[in-house]
């Protein structure tokens, strides 16, 4: 094992260059930030992930953001355990009716200023589950959404682009 540790010290970093902020995401975000007109947070965002009924595919890719390749914390983005510590709610799923109240409570427990990012096709409009008796539809049908990150599921790079767009606006235009 000592050999593995020494090798990992010498073979250099696996992290890849930061992607540029996504244009469509930026445009949508600009509107949301104008509306919110919140105070500058500084270059740091605490993210609380909420699964509101997804198949877990989005969660797998959100997990991947923390691996050695994407290493999300280098951008000042970190995942926190409680909505009370969070600036951003990262919400997935078609919002099942059984999760609606939990999502509302999580939103209400998050202090202002706060942003909601809807992740994946289901979170945008319910996706394949839109017409089900058991689903509400999209995240925006339950809580105000500031940004959508599309994909089924979005790749870690797509997630990173969206989050960076959010970070630049939250941090730079307060």
């Amino acid at each position, binding site marked *: 094992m000592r050999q593995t540790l020494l090798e990992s010290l010498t073979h250099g970093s696996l992290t890849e260059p930061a992607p540029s902020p996504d244009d469509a995401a930026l445009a949508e975000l600009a509107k949301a930030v104008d509306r919110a007109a919140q105070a500058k947070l500084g270059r740091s965002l605490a993210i609380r992930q*909420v*699964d509101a009924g997804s198949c*877990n*595919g989005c969660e797998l890719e959100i997990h991947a953001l923390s691996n050695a390749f994407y290493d999300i914390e280098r951008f000042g983005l970190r995942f926190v355990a409680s*909505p009370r510590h969070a600036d951003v709610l990262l919400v997935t799923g078609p919002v*099942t009716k*059984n999760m609606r109240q939990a999502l509302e409570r999580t939103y209400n427990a998050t202090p202002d200023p706060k942003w909601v990012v809807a992740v994946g096709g289901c979170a945008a409009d319910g996706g394949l589950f839109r017409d089900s*008796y058991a689903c509400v539809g999209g995240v925006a049908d339950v809580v105000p959404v500031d940004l959508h990150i599309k994909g*089924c599921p979005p*790749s870690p790079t797509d997630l990173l682009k969206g989050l960076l767009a959010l970070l630049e606006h939250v941090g730079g235009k307060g």
Partner: protein
Amino acid sequence: MGLLDTIPYKTVVPAHRPWPRAVVAETGWRAAVNHLVGGRLTLLAFWAESATVHMALFDAASSEVAVVSYECASGAFPSVAIHHPPALRLERTIHDLFGLTPTGAGDLRPWLDHHAWGKSYPLAGRNASRDAVPYTFLPAEGEALHQVAVGPVHAGTIEPGHFRFTANGEHVVRLEQWLGYTHKGIESLMQGASLEAAAKLANRTSGDSAAAYAFAFARAAEAALDIEAPRRATLLRALMAELERLANHFGDIGAICNDASFALMHAQTGILRERCLRAADLAFGHRLMMDVIVPGGVTRDVASEGVSALRALLAEIEKVFPRLIELYDNTASLQDRTVTTGIVTMDYARQFGAGGYVGRASGRNFDARRSLAHAPYDELSFEVPVLEAGDVNARVWIRIREVEQSVGLIAQILDRLAAGEIRIALPSGHGDCEGIALAEGFRGDVLVWLRLGGDGRVERCHLRDASWFQWPLLETAIEGNIIADFPLCNKSFNCSYSGVDL
């Protein structure tokens, strides 16, 4: 049809493939339940239609499968769960969705129905109402006991569910789970859907098992239609299933160690998992390989740069993984947390028919790839590791051994990939037909049963995740352990929420 010899039945349903389905009266239903209680048969699945309940049964001695169906003339059927506990959650689900009442049931609390849908018995096809009453957890009483309520929103990036711990100091005396939060009505959406649309839904039943679900769904549809996918497609399907298994096992081995405060392993296996997903993306155009496996074959061939990426992946795993195994095996602080923690007894694993690493770490020697062998696994060489300790450590070791087997399987498949068709057209003009199939997902066997109408649309489809028979065992595994070891136990199971909530 040996399995049905000891179960009196009325008729055998035509065009149900590949195993028989028999309609039984009450004596036949009770005979089947008695065989489950006595351990001669294992319950594979238990589901309903608006006026019928079905059980899929497995005879381990002869490797036979059969389905028995009971027609609920008065909207009721003899309770299975009152005699055979593994049926309990499925029986409560049947009541929630269809309003069919298990006669003599000891527990009819709602399971999926949280009184939020705006209607009762949504799949019953008739209007009926049900009183909304607050959910009651099972009692645990004693002077020094206290309760800890967790979820549905958890502290990590995981699926939602509720856990109610009753503890005496640090020690858990009872855990009760309440799930259903991710219930999306998948089986309702499948009714009347085209095979293509239903396959997409199957892919998204449990995102970590997209290939396994698609594999089982496609094979069930092909069984119903009495067709076979081309050989190259079959090999590619198994390739995807093994790649999915590798990615998930790497993720889990690391996550278990991380919950034992050993982050180094998490970082290292996270690299291997990411390399699997990137190879999958290069080979099949999607990191989780969604929507590639469909009835009739696969939608895309493996890209040539994908084959070299897969070969490079295998070489990387063979170089790095043995060192990680050595690290796991030689770190006393890690072993201290995993050995003898969260034990599932062999009796429970057998009674519940627990699949995957949960069953195989507790002596249940079942793997759908071998026990119900199908193409291409019937021509590939691999071993099914089995241990008996049933603790977190045993579940880690089963995963480690399965990684080694999957690497071998992918290498064999790549060597056998000959040019050929990857998809055949589905027949039209067939009559009503039914099919059933199992695929071995990373966490255990996924079962799909479906009925197709003459127009090729899905009339009814049931998807059964391995987790149905694993979640209840987690409740027993944590008893007597400390609350702080729950994340470790839970991660070693890694049961699906979406897969059972549907």
